[in-house]
């Protein structure tokens, strides 16, 4: 059987029933981290503490959900759902997660210094990276069944 045949078979049958587990969870975690940039912006313009508080919780929750997505990516790989890493998307998300981890600590500072200037800068950078990863479809690895990143 040629490789093409194999892919064809996968796309028709088996692969379609075994979608990548990490995608939707990653999208949810990323949404929280991107939202933290929005609440940081609102804090920057209003100086109302509750917005900085929202940011701190959004980043913490975003990191937890993204960590769950990372575990699911490992499961995707272990259960043979993936063929190879989607290197660009993976690096984008990994960089955003790392920046957000630092940002969680920056946001643990008190009052204005929790957001301005480093906090909002880190939120902005991680939001940009995640939006690019989102535009690329949220898949951090190619599906083995179809060979695409859906």
């Amino acid at each position, binding site marked *: 059987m040629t490789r093409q045949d194999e892919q064809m078979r996968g796309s028709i049958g088996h692969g379609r029933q075994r979608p990548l587990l990490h995608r939707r969870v990653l999208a949810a975690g990323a949404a929280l981290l991107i939202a933290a940039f929005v609440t940081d912006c609102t804090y920057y313009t209003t*100086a*109302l*503490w*509750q917005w*900085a*508080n929202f940011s*701190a*919780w959004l980043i*913490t929750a975003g990191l937890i959900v993204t960590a769950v997505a990372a575990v699911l990516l490992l499961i995707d790989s272990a259960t043979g759902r993936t063929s190879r890493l989607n290197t*660009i998307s993976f*690096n984008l998300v990994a*960089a955003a997660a*790392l*920046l957000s981890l*630092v940002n*969680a*600590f*920056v946001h*643990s*500072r*008190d*009052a*204005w*210094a*929790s957001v*301005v200037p*480093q906090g909002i*800068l*880190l939120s902005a*950078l*991680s939001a*940009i*990276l995640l939006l*690019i990863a989102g535009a690329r479809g949220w898949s951090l690895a190619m599906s083995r069944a179809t060979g695409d990143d859906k």
Partner: protein
Amino acid sequence: MKATSARPIAALLSVVALAACSSKGGDPNRQYGPDPYLPPPRAYLMPPMSVPKAVGWKAGETPTAAAGLKVEALATGLEHPRTLYTLPNGDILVVETNGPGTEPFRPKDFIAGKVKARAGAGAKGGNRITLLRGVDGDGKPALRTVFIDHLYSPYGIVLVGDTLYVADTDAILAFNYDPGATRITSPGVKLADLPAGRLDHHWTKSMTASADGSKLYVGVGSNSNITENGMDVEDGRAAIYEIDRLTGAKRIFASGTRNPTGVAFEPQTHQLFAVVNERDEIGPDLVPDYLTSIRPGGFYGWPYSYWGSHVDVRVHPQRPDLVAQAIKPDYGLSSHVAPLSLLFSEGEHLSPDFAKGAFISEHGSWDRSPLNGYQVIFVSFTDGRPVGKPVPVVTGFLGEDNETVHGRPVGLALDRSGALLVADDVGNTVWRVSATQPGS
């Protein structure tokens, strides 16, 4: 792609570089007195912490007193004793209390809660006042009873005439006092409300009365470290109140005092003094806690500035108009020592060295390495002003390894014989410090 990935890396490195700088505190000696050394403020990813583990005292262990003094336990097994007060008949009141407890607001509050528990600060308070009677001389108290129960995070206590005033965290209560009584069961009558509310971050309400008994003075702490819980919850906080004893009318006597945990009148000049806990998380040597005279209408900087006009950039928007008015405190006690009680000496009973000046209990740091405080000090006064360097009076609260803590000193009082009493809210003990040879 290259450009966007290089920028976060640069930002990341700059933040990590900040965290990697040395964060050890310097010699506290540089920060005693009127002109403490003030390093530039810093920002941290993780503020330096050094949290000693609370282990309590084994049988026979005591703190260490200065030469010529001895220490013995007066009462043990108390529920988080904080404030001590000696009544004219020689009875001693022990306020057993802790904060009302608040829900976590931010992710970091969960970690802060764990830190407090390790250091022994999370224990539940008794919310009551215990009376010790027959404590003169070297003996143990002949009588120990619950004097007033069912209080709400009480702290300050003062007797004026035959009325005993207790400062709960949310109100001053007045109780009729009878010197023979061993228990007060009638509920207190509210004299005045005090700022408390759902958050009540710095909950202690220290209290004293003017010499003529007409006014009460109450220290009210801020509702945050540095306004991170919003400005609206700081309304009427970080201030010292003057309350008319007869009408309950109150006014802010001085402001900008972040957490004025001890207030007392200097006996010679009748000038009001306070010990104030300053802000955290801008460095192990910032900001020195202080002892200062309190001027009517004075503003002492918090939150906008510290030690006079040193601006704190964490506060937004800033108030340059208030920073310009900020009063420099009289006397630095060095950073993060957490002074919790201020007691003026009443003569040579303890030692000629401690005849004129103030005893200050230092509850001790956990946001500084090496640790600082954990002792009772004496600051000499000349002509009603603090002078010289502090002298340690009671030490040994920290284990020799500097990793464990046996006790933390809080409330101070002099008993009728002139011995110094020290409440210890980790050891749950009241210590009595007296001269080895009476009358010497």
